[in-house]
């Protein structure tokens, strides 16, 4: 199983994402922002960082990179796509996910071990969790406040597209404590916390993040 990890100019967490893919048991494939194809991968991860220096808006320039044209087409055909932090911002800018991410209400960059609840464990990226499961995943962002209009938020709640929520503290002012959302079909998911940093007991708060990567492998294997 091959999982592509895109590197944009300014990506930071592409190496950790590839490592998480390896630890989950898949083969990571390096994809470059200038590629106009995905090299036959079975899923794609858009990693965290500051693509194109966060110029204009986070993810706004990355959206128009050649590789994103291929990602949007493939996602619309059902390819599993996970956007982490800056990747989440890119997915919102690309209109693959509803809503937008704005500057933290605290005006501070937040870096902490964040408790989350997985609300929907039936997406391709969360099937190795149980619904309602509480996990601890590293969070680090300056512009992680999820916003959408009330009608959209109600629809997301109703359709189970709110995949994960913050517990204890809302770190960035996200509406309805949203930490992650999926598209209607469930193959595209954006997550503000960083599961790729929570895959090895040696560093970080634990290995709760590995499940996002093993979930998609299990789902892909079941459908192959």
């Amino acid at each position, binding site marked *: 199983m091959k999982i592509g990890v895109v590197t944009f100019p300014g990506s930071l967490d592409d190496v950790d994402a590839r490592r998480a893919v390896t630890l989950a048991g898949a083969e990571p494939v390096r994809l470059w922002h200038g590629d106009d194809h995905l090299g036959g991968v079975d899923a794609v991860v858009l990693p965290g960082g500051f693509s194109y220096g966060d110029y*204009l*808006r986070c993810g*706004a320039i990355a959206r128009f990179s050649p590789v994103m044209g291929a990602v949007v087409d493939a996602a619309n055909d059902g390819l599993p796509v996970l956007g982490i932090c800056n990747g989440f911002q890119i997915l919102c*800018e690309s209109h693959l996910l509803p*809503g937008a991410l*704005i500057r*933290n*209400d605290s*005006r501070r960059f937040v870096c902490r071990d964040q408790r989350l609840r997985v609300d929907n464990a039936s997406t391709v990226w969360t099937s190795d969790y149980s619904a309602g499961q509480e996990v601890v995943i590293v969070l680090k962002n300056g512009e992680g406040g999820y*916003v959408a209009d009330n009608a959209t938020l109600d629809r997301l709640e109703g359709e189970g597209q709110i995949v994960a929520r913050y517990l204890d503290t809302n770190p960035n002012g996200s509406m309805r404590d949203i930490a992650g959302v999926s598209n209607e079909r469930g193959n595209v998911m954006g997550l503000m916390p960083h599961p790729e940093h929570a895959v090895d007991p040696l560093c970080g708060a634990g290995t709760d993040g590995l499940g996002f990567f093993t979930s998609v492998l299990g789902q892909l294997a079941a459908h192959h």
Partner: protein
Amino acid sequence: MARVVVDVMLKPEILDPQGKAVHGALPRLGFDGVRDVRQGKRFELELDGDVTEDRLVEVRRVAETLLSNPVIENYAVRVEPS
């Protein structure tokens, strides 16, 4: 050559932490009586040739797709007098 200006502002209902930070600094500088501050962006587009209605349609498309995110922002286009 003509200059077209695109102003982009967060929608009124979207929280603007940067504007709030600026607002919070005003009393420290001795400025009173400012009820609120909202921060936006201004883009100046230098166009080749004259501004026609067709060009303005294009500029609005640029404003909508790249310069602003319609989920959280409004934009306004105006032609700068030469």
